[in-house]
């Protein structure tokens, strides 16, 4: 049993002249939950579809469970579960019928009722798929992905467009599978999803992995943001760990030490008798990470693993 379930070296994929993945390498170990983070068009779906064996790479080497995802399709599929970015179920079948049909297409499947309950659709069993909400539909697709008790699970944006309740439920299912030893590769737009679930995160940007590490490492190194409406006539103070930008009526600081800078700012405000309207302070978000990456790219420093 290999302990590295996914190995990717210098993977390249293109559609016509557009190169969607430009030399990506990564490893996912058994039992790990690995998240590919990135905006639309970053190359996440292309990556995951290559690993699922749905797309042929143009270059590089890919091994899933130690095998080639296209040539060794059959033995791999018996051990993997897949949730596509969207679709895959006929709208006119009911939840129950869909799962029943898929049991016939899956090796060693769970009982239908068992997986339907796992994703919380037990009260919607007789409802046609086209009448489900977006979140319920995604949960049904999740049920199909885990039907065969997979060793390795691919989830392509499992919670995009979901209501908070569905998202929480999906997270619970993923956590439970993790506890049972399932290895998971998921893609997501949401930093908080990666933070909540992943052991390791890779941020993809324009077909490359820009940065990789534990979620807190990836985000932790980035500046936090403090912002408030610019007060009339008073220039904002200089903070020791921050750079400041004033624009569109707002003062925005990028701070590498949020607590120290915020303390100083509030002291300044209180000393000057100012009321800081619209004050917000938050840690870096995916958007910040991506802006940071884009700026790094622009200055010509090649980001790599």
């Amino acid at each position, binding site marked *: 049993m290999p302990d590295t379930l996914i190995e990717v070296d210098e993977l390249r994929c293109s*559609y016509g002249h557009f190169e969607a993945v430009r030399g990506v390498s990564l490893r996912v170990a058994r039992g790990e939950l690995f998240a590919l983070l990135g905006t639309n068009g970053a190359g996440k779906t292309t990556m995951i579809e290559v690993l*699922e*064996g*749905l797309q042929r790479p143009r270059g590089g080497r890919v091994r899933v469970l130690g095998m080639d995802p296209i040539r060794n*399709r*059959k033995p791999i*599929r*018996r051990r993997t579960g*897949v949730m*596509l970015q*969207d*679709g*895959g*179920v*006929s*709208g*006119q*079948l009911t939840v129950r*019928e869909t799962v*029943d*049909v*898929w*049991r*016939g*297409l*899956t*090796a*060693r*499947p769970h009982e239908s009722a068992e997986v339907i309950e796992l994703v919380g659709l037990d009260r919607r069993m007789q409802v046609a798929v086209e009448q489900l909400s977006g979140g319920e539909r995604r949960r049904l697709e999740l049920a*199909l992905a885990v039907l*065969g008790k997979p060793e390795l699970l691919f989830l392509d944006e499992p919670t995009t467009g979901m209501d908070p309740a569905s998202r929480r439920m999906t997270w619970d299912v993923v956590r439970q599978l993790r506890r049972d030893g399932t290895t998971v590769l998921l893609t997501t737009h949401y930093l908080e999803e990666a933070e909540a679930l992943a052991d390791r995160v890779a941020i993809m940007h324009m077909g490359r992995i820009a940065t990789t590490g534990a979620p807190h490492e990836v985000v932790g190194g980035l500046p936090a943001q403090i912002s408030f409406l610019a007060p009339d006539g008073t220039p904002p103070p200089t903070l020791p760990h921050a750079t400041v930008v004033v624009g569109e009526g707002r003062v925005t600081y990028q701070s590498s030490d949020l607590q120290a800078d915020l303390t100083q700012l509030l002291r300044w405000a209180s000393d000057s008798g100012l009321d800081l309207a619209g004050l917000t302070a938050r840690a870096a978000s995916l958007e910040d990470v991506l802006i940071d990456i884009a700026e790094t790219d622009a200055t010509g420093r090649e980001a790599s693993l």
Partner: protein
Amino acid sequence: MTGTVTEGTLWRQLAALFRMEMLLLRRNMTSAVLIVLLPLIIGAARLGGSDVGADPSTVVDRTASAFGLIAVIFVHHHLVTVYATRRQELVLKRLRAGLPSDWTIISGAAIGALVIFIVQAAMLAAYGVSVLDLPVPQNPLSILLALLLVGAMMATVSAVMSAVTRSAESAMLTTLPTMALFLLTPGVLVPYGALPATVEKAAWFTPLGPFGDVIRVGWLGVDGESGLVSSLVGTLPGIAVMIGWLALTMLMVQRWFRWEPRTQRA
């Protein structure tokens, strides 16, 4: 339940796909009427009523023509819509990400329509024997084989044509060229002898060209003589031509079949 019983074998997968198609057909009234009821009515109309003194060979030709019409018009059109719709809903893509092989998915989508086609043919044959005084077929094996080959060919051709079919609605248009081509085959819509002899001879080598012959020889024997073996041998060349075409259309499927909509990656 033991592991081996629930393994994803080919038959279990085909049964699951068949079940999916049947469930979907039950939900879709238009499709159900189009593929189940209408072909029987058209077929019966083609066979006509009791026609005392008619030459059995003429009645068998009419029966073969009825089988051909059902395959070319109804099975073909239905299967193009099936492939196009499953592709549009990304069902094909999702299936491909799972255990079944490419050919299992393609045949699984067609198997429902093929079963219906075979049952319809059996019903029309029974009608011919019981009402139109046709003899019992001498060699049902060749007849069944010819029906399966035509059905399979409709599946492969539909799979290829579905690549240029965006939705169920456009299937009527995209199947027009192939449908017209198959209908022109002597013995399908064009009666024998209507075309110049040389053209008819050449047409025998088209995909459905030998179909009428195989049905006639399978039903009545070679030159009206009885004997299962001589009838089997007599149908072999025709069966061989049809197998050749099936193999060719399978290569076309391998090359041109599309697993996901073109718009997927705008």
